């Protein structure tokens, strides 16, 4: 009973933390998917007096492609209503039009930076960023992602405190054994082997439980969220990498907490 109680005291905060992490991973996946979808439709239009030189990066975002809009086509569209001399004049005066495609979707802040950066190029006359089109939903998604990340951070902190408390209890329970082994020249790490085994066992159990919970959520996602939002969810939600991340975190957090306490005891 005592063993079960201490096992639950350790695994419960770990599972809650891993579950929060799973939610964060799902939201990140949704945001990434949305970003990927909208970036294909999104371009910044630039009007210049002279042909535009190549641009590699804008506000730290790599430029994927710069597409020049054909001036002849624009003239062709309007030339029926114009005289030859007017067309000739138009040919001379018509500015150059470019569509700049980026590698990732910029936030409003970055868009403003991009605008300012483009404005420093002397031959640019006008910039159209279409900032309002996608930004509302994108900003909302980023907000949700950030809130979940902050929540995850808080849960992580609380979990580490609870994990360290339970590890301290285990150290106290194994104190006799640890001191006897150290009296015979065994290192603190060696003398703590039984505690390490319990920690690794609990971590493994927690990662399996959390992965199972994530799997259940993914399988039943249509029941959990509203149909309107379903369009944002990637059609194929492959979770292998996410499960690996959960496993890694389930081992990493207890190990780091344990090592931190070990260093503390060693210094004492």
């Amino acid at each position, binding site marked *: 009973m005592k063993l079960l109680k201490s096992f639950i005291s350790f695994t419960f905060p770990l599972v809650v933390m891993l579950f929060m992490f799973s939610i964060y991973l799902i939201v990140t996946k949704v945001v990434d998917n949305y970003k990927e979808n909208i970036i294909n439709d999104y371009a910044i239009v630039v009007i210049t007096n002279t042909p535009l030189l190549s641009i590699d990066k804008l506000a730290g975002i790599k430029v994927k492609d710069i597409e020049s809009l054909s001036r002849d086509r624009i003239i062709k569209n309007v030339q029926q209503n114009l005289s030859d001399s007017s067309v000739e004049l138009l040919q001379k005066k018509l500015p150059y039009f470019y569509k700049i495609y980026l590698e990732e979707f910029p936030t409003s802040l970055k868009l403003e930076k991009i605008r300012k950066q483009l404005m420093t190029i002397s031959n640019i006359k006008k910039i159209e960023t279409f900032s309002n089109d996608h930004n509302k939903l994108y900003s909302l998604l980023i907000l949700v992602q950030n809130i979940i990340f902050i929540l995850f951070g808080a849960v992580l902190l609380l979990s580490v405190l609870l994990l360290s408390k339970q590890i301290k209890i285990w150290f106290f329970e194994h104190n*006799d*054994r640890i001191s*006897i*082994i*150290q*009296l*015979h*020249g*065994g*290192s603190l790490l*060696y003398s703590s082997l039984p505690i390490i085994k319990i920690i690794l066992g609990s971590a493994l159990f927690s990662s399996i439980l959390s992965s199972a919970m994530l799997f259940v959520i993914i399988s039943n996602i249509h029941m959990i969220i509203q149909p309107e939002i379903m369009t944002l969810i990637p059609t194929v939600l492959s979770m292998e990498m996410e499960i690996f991340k959960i496993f890694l975190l389930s081992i990493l957090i207890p190990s780091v907490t344990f090592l931190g306490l070990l260093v503390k005891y*060693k210094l004492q």
Partner: protein
Amino acid sequence: MILAKNLTLSYDNKKNIIENANFLIKEKEFIFISGSSGSGKSTMLKSLYGGLAVKKGNLFVNKHDLVKKSYSKLLSLRKDLGIVFQDYKLIQEYTIEENIMLPLKVHNYADDVSKAQVKKLLKHVKLSHKVGAYPAELSGGEQQRVAVARALAHNPSIILADEPTGNLDDYSSDMIWTLLKNANEHLGITIVVVTHRIPIDMGIKYRRFNIEEGVVYEAS
């Protein structure tokens, strides 16, 4: 070899328990440290295995400088020692075999070598029939014999014993003295025993240090 020069010991820098002690214990010697209760005998022994920091002076145990000791050096010193306590300090969750095997595991001996050594030692301390038993199933005398077997397991150069017969009847005490005497005589292990009850007839050559009010002197 154990060398103390102007050794001063205290707990938390309060009153000195041992003051300016000077002594040399050579290899293969049998040493008794005696004195009245609270005189500092156990404190002295504790300092020899690094359980208490040296306040002043110098202390060398097997060329380990205990003044300049680091955590890793402390562990390496303890690997050279065998320690026997009045309260046995056996791990209750381990069997007798596992308890004796502990120093061998710390020294990374192979399993078959360790098992053979444990078998030999259990025969030596007349406890072969208790190999799978747990400490709680043994009498005090038997537990102390296990503790002596554990101290001998890795062939240490020094055995430190703190009141090894303090909790035992005469019969068990005699057995423990015989085991320690044999370890000194036949294996050449230096033995340092803290006791307030030196056996009348040890049958071997030994030296005795007495501690009175923190002063260590060799008694004749």
